[in-house]
């Protein structure tokens, strides 16, 4: 809250309960409505973070601070939870995402080689995005598709039995587009 120190006669500015986010971004309003539905419960933090990531694509500091203020939680707590789960990302994702399942079954079937091939091709490490913001490479711990191991999720579509070659084919299509 800002207190006006220069002019003591002017009363301090009171924050309005339903104030718009200063950025004017409507997504903050949608997020707030979602939090209201969950009665601003502090233990609904994970659900709220899910919604925020769905709306914004990633969780930037502004969004985390907004959530911490609305749920009345310390910012460090919100940051801690957001970084604990691999699903949440604090940096914007690329145009395309490639999620390689590194669960036990996929790993045994050679998912590590797929990751290595993609890493070498894109010159990034798992969890990073290429400098041109085209492709993000992520890994997951078992997506529950062990029967089709090794599975890779390209832009939300699960593709079975991947090899370094087949992954390369898909990645190159994205890079050249």
């Amino acid at each position, binding site marked *: 809250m800002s207190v006006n120190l220069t002019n003591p006669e002017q009363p301090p500015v009171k924050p309005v309960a339903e104030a718009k986010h200063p950025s004017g971004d409507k997504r903050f309003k949608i997020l707030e409505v979602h939090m209201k539905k969950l009665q601003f419960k502090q233990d609904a933090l994970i659900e709220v973070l899910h919604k925020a990531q769905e709306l914004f694509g990633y969780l930037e500091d502004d969004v985390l601070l907004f959530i911490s203020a609305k749920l009345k*939680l*310390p*910012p*460090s707590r919100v*940051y*801690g939870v957001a*970084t*604990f789960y691999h699903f949440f990302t604090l940096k914007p994702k690329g145009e395309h995402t490639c999620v390689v399942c590194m669960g036990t079954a996929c790993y045994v079937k050679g998912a590590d080689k797929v990751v290595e091939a993609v890493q070498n091709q894109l010159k990034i490490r798992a969890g990073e995005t290429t400098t041109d913001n085209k492709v993000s490479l992520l890994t997951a711990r078992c997506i529950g598709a062990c029967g089709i191991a090794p599975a890779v999720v390209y832009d939300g579509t699960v593709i079975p039995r991947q090899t370094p070659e087949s992954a390369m084919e898909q990645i190159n299509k994205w890079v050249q587009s």
Partner: protein
Amino acid sequence: MAAKTLTIDGKQISAEEGASVLQAASEAGITIPTLCHLEGVYDVGACRLCLIEVKGIPKLLPACTTKVAEGMEVSTDSERLRKYRRMTLELLFAERNHVCAVCVANGHCELQTLAYSLGMDHVRYDYNFPKWGVDTTHRLFGMDHNRCILCARCVRTCWHVEGAGTKNVAGRGSKSKIISDLNQPWGHSESCTECGKCVMSCPTGALFRKGSTVGESERDRTKLEFIVTAREKKQWNA
């Protein structure tokens, strides 16, 4: 409140219902090694040094988060427990850069004291030697992540004793790290009240007062207990 009778190391003990085995043991004068436990804040059972054997349960249980039960038979010392405690300590040493000879907490370190008392004479595992930074942006205190054992005592103290919630654990596994606010330099933290309770709570040299010598870095934990007792029981005697 109902009392429970149990035996700890063959000694008949009566403890209040809801008390932890650790509390019951310390009231009976039996010492169990601890590291993440801190008087005044709630227990999390993270360090696994207070592991005990309970008759009838095959696995080892942490004394700090195990509640007393009627007829419980507890053993706090055995070859098996000593073996596991030493192993846990060695893993803690190997995970980050714990080199006592060059540490600000040398001589006042709970990790070091435990290693001595549990007869740890070497570390069987290769040190990880991670490259963690040192945050010296704060006006009064510093945080050396290389010496952090992630016991989260500072986190619990900051949140539940001071009430500021400046510190928390970010990330997971070996990449976990104690952060201030949104992982910003400690000196830029808006919520930090500069009370220094986190420094008092730290068992190692991870949190330190700037400009203090090794000899001065003894920590006054009784102050934390004093505050908690004053707040909860309305008693102002240390």
